[in-house]
């Protein structure tokens, strides 16, 4: 184990995968000479050269689609899209091509493509640069979508994505790049498609992912101080969704709250809540509540932006309300 930032974990994993497999190459805007908008690829052009660290012009549909074709011929492109927002410019290639090619051609071709891209609001980047639209991709059969919350998962899930023969969206988070945590040494590959109980508890389940998982842990700590035992489930994988892990937790705690940075309607929380009501209805002592972003385009001004984004305070309040609704003593 070594402690490092989420950013460092991503960087080191990219480098390790490139050293491990000649078919792995990186492509994206400003990832080479500029070393990446968020410096994930710092130093890699100098080490691997322009053949394997390819700066692409501003043309998301073009270079993401080119990565799809290169992957069809057996290469393993890892594409960086500067932020999740810009993935919309490439959505035809991601949704209509990367996600479809394996099934649509009867399993004769695969697309071992990784798209890395950070989501996340809270940086005062305003409406077009603050969106959490991971559900657009989580909705799509044929894609795998992961959203690591910790440096360890950043490593393990990215490594798994690179080695997987399907297109995988690795949704990073601007707010997490500088967070620190313990990362397993050596060749560490996590399993795609699995959620993780990151804190055990008995009274209430908080389900979240990415930045939200860290907020959930913080709130669980505060509840603990009040004598309330909260369990935290980090989804890690948005597609496939690990429904059994979610339901098993709620069967134990009988209460659930979802914390999500995306907008509430049709969001991750909606899917989780539906999963719980179907899979653990008889165990529920209270309605499943969701804490999500206010349904407006994200504003620039700090007080407005803060009001729109889900916070630890909002989660704490909803957790209390959920407990109170069932007469939980506190």
């Amino acid at each position: 184990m070594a402690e490092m930032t989420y950013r460092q974990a991503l960087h080191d994993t990219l480098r390790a995968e490139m050293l491990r497999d000649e078919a792995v190459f990186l492509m994206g805007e400003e990832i080479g000479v500029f070393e990446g908008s968020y410096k994930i690829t710092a130093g890699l052009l100098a080490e691997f050269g322009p053949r394997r660290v390819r700066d692409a012009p501003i043309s998301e549909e073009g270079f993401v689609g080119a990565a799809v074709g290169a992957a069809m011929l057996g290469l393993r492109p890892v594409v960086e899209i500067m932020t999740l927002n810009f993935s919309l410019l490439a959505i035809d290639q991601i949704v209509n091509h990367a996600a479809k090619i394996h099934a649509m051609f009867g399993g004769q071709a695969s697309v071992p493509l990784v798209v890395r891209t950070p989501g996340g609001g809270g940086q005062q980047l305003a409406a077009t640069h603050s969106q959490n639209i991971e559900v657009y991709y989580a909705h799509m059969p044929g894609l795998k979508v992961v959203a690591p919350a910790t440096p360890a998962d950043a490593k393990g899930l990215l490594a798994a994505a690179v080695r997987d023969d399907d297109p995988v969206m690795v949704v990073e988070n601007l707010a997490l790049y500088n967070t620190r945590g313990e990362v397993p040494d050596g060749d560490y590959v996590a399993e795609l498609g699995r959620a993780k109980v990151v804190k055990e508890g008995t009274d209430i389940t908080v389900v979240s992912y990415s930045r939200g998982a860290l907020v959930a842990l913080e709130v669980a700590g505060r509840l603990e101080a009040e004598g309330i035992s909260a369990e935290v489930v980090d989804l890690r994988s948005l597609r496939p969704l690990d429904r059994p892990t979610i339901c098993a937790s709620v069967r134990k705690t009988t209460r659930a709250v979802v914390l999500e940075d995306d907008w509430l309607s049709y969001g991750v929380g909606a899917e989780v809540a539906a999963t719980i009501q179907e899979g653990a209805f008889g165990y529920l002592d209270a309605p499943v509540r969701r804490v999500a972003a206010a349904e407006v385009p994200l504003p620039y001004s700090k007080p407005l932006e803060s009001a729109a984004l889900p916070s630890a305070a909002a989660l704490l309040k909803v957790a209390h309300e959920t407990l109170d609704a069932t007469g939980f003593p506190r």
Partner: protein
Amino acid sequence: MANSSRASARVEAQGRGDKSQGGLGAGDGRRAAPPLALADVPAEVLVGYYRQMKLVRAFELRASEMYTKAKIGGYCHLNLGEEATVVGLMAALRPTDYLFTTYREHGYALARGAPPGRVMAELFGKATGSSRGWGGSMHLFDASLRLMGGYGIVGGQIPPATGAALAIAYRSGPGPDSEAVMCLMGDGTTNIGAFHESLNLAALWRLPIVYVIVNNGLGMGTPVDQASAEPELYKRGCAYRMPGARVDGCDVLAVRQAAEAALSAARNDRQPSILEAVSYRLRGHSVVDPARYRPKEEAERLRSLDPVPAFRARLVQAGVMDEARAAQVDAEADEAVADAVRFAEDSPFPDPSQLFDHAYATAVPNAPSYLPGDPLPA
């Protein structure tokens, strides 16, 4: 637009904006080479081209018939009228090259060597089809033929085709034995963003690819000059300093020659280019389109240019094959298509139990495999 151009020279070329360069670049002889004549090509090869053209013609007519009999679902776009373009392009392509096509691709699959039975079975939605019943008419695929797919989204194939060329360049250098990519598209496709982004990437990175625009004069019902501000489509690469050439798509030998020159530049010089084949649709956009937007006289004029009887007559007249041989080739094509229909009819449909077989290439825990109404895993 497409039609007025046919009167002009068989190949027009445009250089990279550098006049001294000309054509597809120095050394490829594209401008200098005299047009390929019948006498330059062995008789058996010529008869082979006619056989393929006739096979495509017969196949497409039967496909149309099967569609009206509801044996074929979805959309069904035919290569009727484009047979010389189809066969000329495929004749230029090597087995080691990669082909990305549009949704109007039955003929390309056949001329590339796909068994007609498997193509027809795909149209029928059968398990023995080219894409195992998952793709249908618009999405034929055959890895062994490096037929990398028909694509239903207009121009969706262009970025992946460009990426396939990137993969070739990633793995090996230029040279006469280099693999190359041919990316087909229709005239309407040259107006989408992905076309322009891809051309820029290919020119910037010098990728071994030929972008073939099959210009049949109409994007569905819209004439080229009402959709494209530069209706001479082979010139649309000029912003990327990408050479282009236009060829008479009704002349199978001219198409082959022009495609070979473009592929040669891609292989040897990593020079991507555009090849515009001026062709036409004998019928509507798809089987269900009666093409009422086309004036009657125009439709008649186009029929008079029909490349299949024209090439047949040309070969008979030149003594390459006699009438008896021609009649035999015609009969064999009809027979091959009848066999294909029988094969498709007799083949089983995919079993619904196989619905999730191709959900993912790498198995993953919790992959959704529930049918409508099934309980969710909990």
